[in-house]
């Protein structure tokens, strides 16, 4: 039965996403498009609901550890939500093939980047803890706001176009260029994803591109999967999970290209 299958799909996407730190949303849209016969635009809109669910659940955990910079996040959200709303609007005029091509390109690019880094996605930075068990964050002052806002506009645009979180763009920009500690950059990026995804999701919804009957079981599965994944992550070697994720991403990219060239599923 379809709903049960979607709960399962969401569960594994959420599990992989939470264990590797790469949002599971990037897997959901191509799988919905290629294996469930959902047009790519509706697939993207539908998986946005799962992306918002994951972000809300995981950033509430980061907030309780006080590692999120709400001021920085809110400032950059001006740019991410603007970018996301604009591209979500423009997607209505894109043809399906262009969207599938961009998605395949993005999957390929992400896979190659992860492989070049030797399968390391998550930060190696261990949080320092003081005697009260609180996380200690070195004092910092965010720098280069124009650059951060520009990168956020781009990340938001990509998010509205493909229904993804855009963490792989925001985290390095905050960490490398804005002088923000990696732990804070990761938590803050996660915090921003919900609002960014919501900015495009409302546009997709009004256009009828969120299929509620599919979005609900997916979100339920993703929620459960990411709860479990977050608990498992510290206990297992995530490196192999990352390679599994890369293998799935490469398969989906190849499948999308074949789909584009032949006009039918491989």
């Amino acid at each position, binding site marked *: 039965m379809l709903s049960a299958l979607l709960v399962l799909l969401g569960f594994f996407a959420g599990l992989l996403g939470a264990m590797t730190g790469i949002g599971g949303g990037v897997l959901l849209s191509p799988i919905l498009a290629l294996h469930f016969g959902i047009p790519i635009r509706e697939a993207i809109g539908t998986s946005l609901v799962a992306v918002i669910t994951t972000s809300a659940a995981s950033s509430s955990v980061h907030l309780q550890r006080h590692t999120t910079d709400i001021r920085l996040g*809110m*400032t950059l959200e001006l740019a991410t*939500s603007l970018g996301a709303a604009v591209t*979500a609007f423009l997607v209505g005029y894109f043809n399906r093939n262009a969207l599938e091509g961009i998605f395949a390109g993005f999957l390929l690019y992400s896979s190659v980047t992860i492989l070049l880094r030797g399968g390391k996605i998550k930060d190696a930075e261990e949080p320092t803890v003081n005697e009260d068990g609180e996380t200690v964050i070195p004092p910092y002052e965010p720098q280069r706001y124009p650059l951060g806002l520009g990168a956020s506009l781009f990340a938001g645009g990509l998010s509205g176009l493909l229904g993804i979180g855009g963490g792989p763009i925001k985290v390095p920009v905050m960490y490398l260029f804005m002088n923000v500690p990696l732990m804070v950059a990761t938590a803050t990026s996660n915090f921003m994803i*919900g609002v960014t995804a919501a*900015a495009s999701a409302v546009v997709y919804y009004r256009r009828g591109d969120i299929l509620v009957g599919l979005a609900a079981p997916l979100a339920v599965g993703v929620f459960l999967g990411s709860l479990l994944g977050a608990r498992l992550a510290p206990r297992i070697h995530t490196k192999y999970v990352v390679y599994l994720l890369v293998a799935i991403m490469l398969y989906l990219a190849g499948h999308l290209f074949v789909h584009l060239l032949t006009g039918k599923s491989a």
Partner: protein
Amino acid sequence: MSQLREPAFDRVVALVLRVGAFGCFFIMLAGLLMGLFVHTHIPGDIERAGVLLMLATPVVRVLVAGVLFLREKDWKYGAISFGVLAILLLGAVFGIGEH
């Protein structure tokens, strides 16, 4: 200016997100389970309510943070929050009915 140590602020915003995520999860789950036994439009309507509340959660989060900033007399970040809120609402208004 960056201030990370504002436990009360963090807690309120975290609460909004947690209530949204858990609440919507249970609403959508209820709709799904009901759909196994009830064959009317009701389970679908419940699922739609869950999805819409999920979309509304980040919007409420921005609104709550904005109000908290204003209460702290932090006008700059209050204004930024309401700017984000305006973008979110404009997106909802302008996406109307294009099929």
